């Protein structure tokens, strides 16, 4: 298994949307390497003849009747919003600089 570099962690941090300082990236690379070293032993027994288990219950989709039930009001839904305007969530620009 290739060593985890600072650039690898920087890429992961970008995917996970966490801004990290160079010092944090270095530290995380060392820790990730250490943790992966400990957890990669799952590969010792995970042979191709074993079916994966993703969930403890064998369940299929659960459906309900499509009827309107009481739900949060607009005001309640917006009660925790960091910013709001005109009864809507106000978010920073999402379509790049203009």
């Amino acid at each position, binding site marked *: 298994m290739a060593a985890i570099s600072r650039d690898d962690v920087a890429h*992961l941090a970008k995917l*996970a949307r*966490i*801004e990290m300082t160079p010092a*944090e990236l270095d530290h*995380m690379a060392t820790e990730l390497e250490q943790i992966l070293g400990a957890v990669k*032993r799952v590969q010792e027994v995970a042979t191709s003849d074993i079916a994966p288990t993703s969930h*403890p219950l064998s369940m299929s989709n659960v459906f309900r009747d499509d009827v309107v039930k009481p739900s949060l009001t607009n005001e309640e839904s917006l*009660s*925790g919003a960091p910013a709001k305007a005109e009864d809507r969530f106000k978010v920073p620009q999402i379509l790049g600089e203009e």
Partner: protein
Amino acid sequence: MTNIHSTASEMASALTTKEISSVELTKQHLDRIASVDGKIHAFLHIDSDGALAQADAIDKKRASGEKLSPLAGVPIAVKDILAQKGIPTTAGSKILEGWRPPYDSTVVAKLKAAGVIILGKTNMDEFAMGSSTENSAYGTTQNPWDLTRTPGGSSGGSAAAVAAFEAPLAIGTDTGGSIRQPAALTGIVGVKPTYGGVSRYGVIAYSSSLDQVGPFARTVLDTALLHEAIAGHDERDSTSINAPVPQVVAAAKRLDVKGMKIGVIKELSGSGFQAGVSARIAESLELLVAAGAEIVEVSCPNFEYALAAYYLIAPSEASSNLARFDSMRYGLRVGDDGSKGAEEVMSATREAGFGKEVKRRIILGTYALSSGYYDAYYGSAQKVRTLVKQDFDNAFAKADVLVSPVTPTTAFKIGEKSNDPVAMYLSDIATIPVNMAGIGGMSLPVGLADEDGLPVGLQIMAPVMQDDRFYRVGGTLEAALLSKWGKPILSNAPDLAVK
């Protein structure tokens, strides 16, 4: 005389006979919190006004002769990962500081409907990621047995509150041991019900294929009463099992294990466990044999891979679940000065709002799920999960319940493992397989280790939806231990209020 040292069942009877009112009982607990929580730091938020108002309403209903639930008027502490309408809910994270949910989680709604008095919200490792509460963004909880030690985690605040007589009951969540491990380390009873046994609607998700809500109390019967109050099908949780709740209260009262087969898991005993822990477990087995149970040895050879699989599965699911903390609809938002785009604001917010362990697990999960590594890590971990389930199936073919220590050691010192993630992860080695298979398990206090005088927990596990079995074994063993000791285990803990 009913007081904070009474059991929840005793409190419930005293309320019924009107020996004490719920307002008086609630005040006693709020006073206790005021006098000891400065040392323990079990609570992140105390809702005195809400609790007293709720208690007063219950007293009035009782006075008018209304039929009430068994635990009506008894106080409880709730882990700060369950949404409670209008009450700060942080999951131990800065990213949710100040957030007040606009709705109740199903468990909180059930508690309110049952008339259980919610005293406040308890401390925890951030987003339930940890085994000591040291990962809380709001400071560490201290173990009532020894303030230099952790109460375990992640539900450490709930466990400490019950052990310190700040509440007779508490709610926790358990993803890899987060109810059973702190219960063991503080000398109380904690249960992780069968996966799907208790609704998770309104519970902040960490690892959705593993998370489960469950009860804490000081006795097996109290734990069963709370279990029964919160369990059952919920149409708002698609992973909720639509079947009758196991008869846990009846099982807790049964006090008989004649003919039951108790399976001792070979791989969870011996050299990896502190001598004082192993000694108390061995004594418990002798008591169960004396009560008519039969001990059989079972082997679960794949358990040694469960910890590694867990630390791939849980972070992978967490990396997805925690994507919802994006600073757009609720919670913290950092750096939104009008010049930055949504992605930049999101990244700055998550950098500022998440603690070290949470970032570590999100990055690890992102790695384990990324293309090129998916099969080698997440895929392999899911196969280990199949093997762990098979081990349990084979073991339960030979035994009605399985037992092991809950933890390799008694409570560890604050700071002892906080800089070594892998060492910290090892404290969950005996509890993780239960979550992987979706079965239920109990932690029962079975005495104090000779070398340090700290509590030891016995883990009792049962197959899916057979939770009544560990209540039956736990109740029987608890009675045998109590008659041996002559007093409850917590009477050995320091009286915090006197110091």
